[in-house]
């Protein structure tokens, strides 16, 4: 009689179930994985480790900060804010009406070059308080239509700038409709300075997002005209102002490339700008600025990165010093009873 009862005197200790004649061992297989013994490195925050990590950060960050700051300092930037100055004095109490009236809005500005500016000098316009990142605005475009002449009817996302006189607008949507239309002409010593507007947009945009055989149609034909008009004979992929404009800005204050000046400007040069002040930023109290800037390897002029690197590097250095002092003054020796008094409440966080 087989039995797994404990009372049998002959059976082995806890003899296995009698239905399983083959003693099938259930011993778990050994592997480093299943036994959770995989080789591992176990980093912990020892004072030495932390202090050296902080020191390392400061050693890396401070030079980066200095180099970035130098890069930023190298950049020469001329900024001219003109949205108020370009309104005739008598119209300044109602700027909106002025900007919406069909009068001539030419405005002359002169910029003085303080420091030698090496070419290429990038010309930007800077708008302020302009929400190109507004959801309604961002969505109001038709990528299909911009790419492919066959899709010009694909305007469902573009309302209310989808059709004019029953025909689809190409390019449709609020973004294209509100295209920036101030223009700048530069002269130096009465010599015109050419502005190169080729290559101011991203290559991928020109090649893949805006079609080579898509031409503006029916554009700005509605009663309410938003911004610039387009040359109906130039394909969209050549309309770089539009391409730049349609790559929407992330924040309400933004610059966009207007063109490049490909000659050096000397210190003391006076640049005259003949400016067509067409664009209405007055409704929403937006500023307008004209910016001329060189670039460094890091881009344009902004000290923030350099300062932030210096600050973080400095902070790390400071902290590493503090920790060193703590470590030296209050070393937490093994078994040192003094630290126990700190710990009335273990682990309380």
């Amino acid at each position, binding site marked *: *009689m087989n039995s797994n009862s404990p*009372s*049998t*005197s002959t059976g082995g200790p806890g003899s*296995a179930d*009698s*239905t399983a004649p083959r003693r099938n061992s259930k*011993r778990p*297989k050994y592997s480093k994985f*299943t036994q959770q013994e*995989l*080789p*591992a490195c*176990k980093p912990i*925050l020892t*004072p030495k480790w932390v202090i050296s990590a902080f020191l390392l950060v400061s050693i890396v*960050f401070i030079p980066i900060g200095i180099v970035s700051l130098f890069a930023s300092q190298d950049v020469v930037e001329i900024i001219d804010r003109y949205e108020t100055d370009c309104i005739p004095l008598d119209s300044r109490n109602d700027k909106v009406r002025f900007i919406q009236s069909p009068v001539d809005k030419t405005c002359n500005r002169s910029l003085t070059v303080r420091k030698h500016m090496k070419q*290429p000098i990038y010309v*930007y316009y*800077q708008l302020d308080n302009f*929400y190109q*990142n507004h*959801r*309604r*605005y961002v969505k109001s475009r038709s*990528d*299909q239509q911009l790419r492919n002449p066959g899709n010009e009817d694909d305007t469902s996302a573009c309302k*209310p700038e989808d059709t004019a006189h029953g025909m689809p607008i190409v390019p449709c949507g609020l973004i294209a409709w509100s295209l920036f239309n101030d223009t700048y002409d530069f002269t130096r010593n009465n010599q015109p300075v050419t502005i190169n507007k080729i290559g101011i947009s*991203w290559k*991928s945009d020109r090649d*893949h997002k805006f079609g080579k055989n898509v031409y503006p149609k029916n554009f700005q034909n509605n009663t309410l005209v*938003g911004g610039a008009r387009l040359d109906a004979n130039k394909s969209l992929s050549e309309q770089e102002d539009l391409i730049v404009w349609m790559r*929407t*800005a*992330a*924040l*309400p*204050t*933004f*610059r966009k*490339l207007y063109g490049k000046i490909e000659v050096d400007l000397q210190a003391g040069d006076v640049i005259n700008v003949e400016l067509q002040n067409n664009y209405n930023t007055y409704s929403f109290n937006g500023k307008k600025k004209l910016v001329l800037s060189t*670039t460094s390897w*890091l881009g*344009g002029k*902004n000290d*923030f990165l350099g300062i*932030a*690197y210096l600050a*973080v590097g400095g902070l*790390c250095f400071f902290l590493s010093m503090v*920790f060193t002092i703590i470590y030296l003054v209050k070393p*937490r020796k*093994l*078994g040192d009873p003094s630290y*126990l008094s*700190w710990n*009335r409440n*273990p*682990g*309380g966080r």
Partner: protein
Amino acid sequence: MADRSKSRIRFSRLYSFLCLRSPFRDEHSQIGQKGFSRVVYCNEPDSTEQLQLRYRSNYVSTTKYNAFNFIPKSLFEQFRRVANIYFLVVACVSFSPLAPYTATSILFPLIVVIGATMAKEAVEDWRRRKQDIEANNRKVEVYDRNHNFQETRWKKLRVGDLVKVYKNEYFPADLLLLSSSYEDGICYVETMNLDGETNLKVKHALDVTASLHDDDSFQQFKAVMKCEDPNEDLYAFVGTLFYNGQRHPLSVQQILLRDSKLRNTDYVYGVVIFTGHDTKVMQNATDPPSKRSNIERKMDKIIYILFSTLILISFIGSFFFGIQTKNDIVGGKLKRWYLRPDKTTVFYDPKRAVLAAFFHFLTGLMLYGSLIPISLYVSIEIVKVLQSIFINQDQDMYYEDTDKPARARTSNLNEELGQVDTILSDKTGTLTCNSMEFVKCTIAGIAYGRGMTEVERALAKRKGKAVPDSGNTSSYVRGSSDRHTDSGKSIRGFNFRDERIMNGHWVNEPHADVIQKFFRVLALCHTAIPDVNQESGEISYEAESPDEAAFVIAARELGFEFFERTQTSISLHEFDHQSGRKIDRSYKLLHVLEFSSARKRMSVIVQNVENQLLLLCKGADSVMFERLSRNGRDFEATTRDHIKEYAEAGLRTLVVAYRELNEEEFRLWEEEFLQAQTSLNADRDAMVDAAAERIERNLILLGATAVEDKLQKGVPECIDKLAEAGIKMWVITGDKMETAINIGYACSLLRDDMKQIVVTLDSPEINDLERQGNKEAIAKASSASISKQISEGNSQISLSNGSSISFGLIIDGKSLSFALNKNLEDSFLDLAINCSSVICCRSTPKQKALVTRLVKRGIGKTTLAIGDGANDVGMLQEADIGVGISGVEGMQAVMSSDFSIAQFRFLERLLLVHGHWCYRRISMMICYFFYKNIAFGFTLFWFEAYASFSGKPAYNDWYMSFYNVFFTSLPVIALGVFDQDISARLCLKYPVLYKEGVQNVLFSWPLVLGWMLNGVISSMIIFFFTTNAVVNQAFRRDGHVVDYEVLGVMMYTCVVWTVNCQMAISINYFTWIQHFFIWGSIAFWYAFLVMYGAVSPIISTTAYQVLVETCAPSPFYWLVTLLVVVSSLLPYLSYRTLQIQFRPMIHDIIQRLRSEGSETEISGELSLGNKEKLALVEEKLIDRVNAT
């Protein structure tokens, strides 16, 4: 073993109650009515009548789903979670213009998450299905139309089929027993799968069918059976058999239940009554009560906090959005004309700004949805399943002897294992082996047995005495190898050494006749069944309890060898001291008065060859001494002393007594007894007990036995460790107080330096009252006494407050029942909590569950119950965690447990290692989950503030939806599965570490909120550093400025780096898996950008070539990433450094120890100095935690 001759024996009267055929009872009148409508045409499964009834087939499916309902049903299960409903609603709304991003990108993560969970369900269900297939395709012999028995698959069985089941086979369905290989149609079944009891039960065919012995006899067999409808009651059955024109009542005695096993019987014939899901075992199948862990409950609260945050920031957003939208037209003039506020949908309409704001609120809810970690639940489930696998696979919790590994039967409670505050433990079988050994006895006032028990040894050790080598005193338990060395002398269940009575020397003892009677009682008074090995002639016994087996074996070893049992007799080989030879003596068995926990005794009435009628009785001292006759108390005083000694040595004692009956008395009593047995009243059992009571008196004391239940290996060490870990231990046992206290000492639950507080009702006053028998007065006095003792205990503790004395509370069952009353409950609990260990002795299973509930409710902390027997089931289910010992007492406890281990000592590893790890992993994982989602979600919010809260997300739709699925989820899972703050070895070495879980320091509100704050800080650093660095100016040498696309990529890169690096600095354990997942996630982000950016701009929209063309060539992009990532890690790093320096957590200290000790460990042994240091710190650690 069942040879032919034996099978002809009519066994039916062996079990005294069985000799009585169940008469028609009241229920039988209901046959054919509602609830009793089942009709079975026996042996005619094909008859039209049977087929018309359309009973279910024997096909069994335990799966939750089938191919058709899987999708709807599992979907329904999924959407019972609040978070999932939220995401579903979001997904539905995402098809409307309200959605801030495309519907597919919202649906995708939801589908992945739901799909993963459903896949998990499907895999689990598939496993169940495989088991079903195995069961459905088992073979059984069925009687076919050609009057032969043919093998058929189980699933093809139909109601009415006649089947033949062989020894050790499972019954394929619920059967009506027709006949068996025994002439009288009995058979033995083992119901372990049903109720976990390993002892054999006897089933009994009707006399009219019992004669159908051959396959051929069924040719003409036809019968109709009417019975109750399928139900789940395992212990009742009502039916009627119409056979040969007569009605026969059927009871549960004739029913063989599916999933029980035929034992000790060559074969049985049966008719299928209930098939498939109609069987009792299937009707009984219910899901175990699901327990949820504390952490998960808290997690829900945190999710609610996140939901509130979500609503709050959406509201803030829509408030500002409303204002700005309203201002778009002022006095009929367009402000932000480029948005055409004059021609717009309601969502942006300045004239209906409030409505627009409301719709925007909905948009906001979707936009900031990434605050709610969509993949949290599924990640936690995956992690827990993997953790369970680790528990199951742990070799250190595998028990060689029974071939049983540890099993996590549920994965819900893994982390709860790390937070156990109180353990409630059974004693027998849990702390001890539950293999009984006969070690001592006292006969006629003389103590025999020279062995020393483990408890005695422990006591001696404590007193500093030299401990004799364990030698042959505990020869057996050490394992099988010992047995061979002892040249077969050591016998399981017998560890008695005394030359005075062994080998027949007892005849020379002064009370030889008493000794003879004593061992005769042991050899006769039991229900064991002998099993004679035909070849060797050795006899082994099959007994209901190990104690009983120990007695029979002891009797055999001392010359009273029980070798045969028939239904009417018991036969012994007895040593005859006159002839000096072994002679066979046969005793006529008249009645068995069975053991029950209420009666605490059992008796048999036998007639010996001299025609003497003898009542042989053994039982607990508490019930036996009061039943002694006046002239039977000769040795009472010495026996009592010996019993006390035995109890102190941790032995289980039984008093042995007998009585001679005269014919007349017996005849009268028998009549009464039979009447009681056949009565139909509900209190039949009480009547039977009362009848038994009447004959079990005027006994003559013979002596007492002492059986040792050995402590399991490693129990004291394990309990020591658990105590060090701050876990309180309650032992709840049925033993006597002395036994319990001594076991307490033996397993180091009680120590010398402890003060004992004993609460007992064993005082003279109470005893006096009891003698008077005034129940009310007893209750009142008892209650008052308990109350007084409890308050005394409390004042003792408060007096010693501040000193390091610890207390042990010992309370007996009677007192416990008073202490558990409403009015005393609280003070009792106070007392118990302040004691480091509590022993409840003499307690019933119900009290076990009650105490568990009291502790659970009273402390409000996690309780763990551990036990091995059916009597622990209540306790296991009541506790937060039930741990079953898969020992010898069947599977009942294991079946209702959450974890099962083979030995008590594995509890140490289960809690201190796996529990601690799982707790730490899960809590870190959840904290980190919230951190990463807040860090991400809040960058969206900051961006909104710069986009006039219009609801434009800062990132491309697909970056967002992959965030929780690809870029950040795998490292968290790796953390949840693999992280170890401290290695297993050190976890065991420093149990004090476990207190982190008990005090829940790793998932405390400050910590959780700290992580959330860290998330907000990270998001601010990411957003403001990035935007300020890139504002306006060119970010490349070629003069291009940062636009919406580039900013999104920059910020997102920073987010991915930050959360992954944050993970890297907060985990403690870097295997290649962590490295792979963390750095792989970051690398995958770039790879994703490249791939996604390479597809047509129609699909990739704002991500088109954004990395390759725009960002990667710009050093600025990389520098910003470096700056932001390092800066956003600084707060955490500095905080942790300071914390480790000034307020280290326990694991910090141990980690530091490890790293500082490691230098010496490499060179082999620790140097002495370091060892001392370690020991010192260990002490301090304990002191420190105790102080708090």
